[in-house]
């Protein structure tokens, strides 16, 4: 690839070819493989353990989100007409029950979403 070839290309093929031509060379040596194999643990992480870890993560996040929204619901519901949270978030200072219901409605999907995220490896 020469500067002229780069110039003559109407699209990006010349540039792509140049970048590809300039890619670093192969790097492979037996020593690297041996170093990796020396450090290799005796076993994989068993699939059951991976599943357990994901479940634990899901439980943690689901629990945290569910608790957070649940507490919000409790707070909004327990406050009477002057609920600052309901006022701030929902604009319905006289409807704390509605604020509580909305927070509760968010708690379950929040927990479900956290669970799904935890499933994704």
């Amino acid at each position, binding site marked *: 690839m020469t500067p002229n070839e780069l110039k003559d290309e109407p699209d990006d093929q010349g540039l792509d070819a140049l970048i590809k031509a300039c890619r*670093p060379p192969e790097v492979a040596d037996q020593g690297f493989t041996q170093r990796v*194999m020396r450090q290799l643990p005796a076993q994989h992480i068993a699939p059951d353990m991976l599943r357990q870890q994901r479940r634990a993560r899901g439980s943690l996040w689901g629990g945290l989100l569910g608790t957070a929204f649940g507490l919000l619901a409790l707070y909004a519901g327990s406050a009477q007409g002057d609920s600052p949270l309901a006022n701030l978030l929902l604009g319905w200072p006289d409807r704390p029950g509605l604020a509580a219901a909305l927070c509760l409605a968010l708690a379950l999907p929040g927990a479900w979403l956290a669970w799904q995220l935890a499933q994704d490896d």
Partner: protein
Amino acid sequence: MTAPDAQARLDRCVLKAQQGDRQAFAELVAAHQSDVRRQLRQLTRGDHALADELAQEAFLQAWRHLPAFRRDAAFGTWLYRIAYRGFLMHRRSAPPDAVTPALADSGGGPEEAMAPESEPGLRLDLQRALQQLPEAERVALLHCLHLDLSHSEAAAVLGVPLGTVKTHVLRGRVRLRELLSAWNPKDPR
């Protein structure tokens, strides 16, 4: 051994390694180490020691999580993804200047990577231009052009939507053309 034969052999190695065969995993390391190390050398801007350390850790992670590999992507792509995640985690934990050695060392060192038919000056300028690209564009170009991944494979490795990779590659090319315009005076792009 032809390429399909070699690929079939590596696929069998993946299956065996998933069942705990260490020798099969050693073959996989030998077959994929070059790609992973080159990827990390580029990401670390030529810090070979760090790149090799991260590559080792990537293979160890791959071994630990091999039973979870569902074979819905190529094993190599899965390895790239693990290596890229490892690099990101290292960068988050390292001081900002720890992963930014000298510009001239990019891509494993210009003198080392010289393609025989390429113009040395142009090559050097290309390396410098690559370093001036925004990180996302540089990384997208690296995976698509240096590592020969398809856009969708690069998206899977980088964990971003396909459209984002295409945009970064496109913008990166435009910017590279601008930065290399001295080599191409008739093209003002």
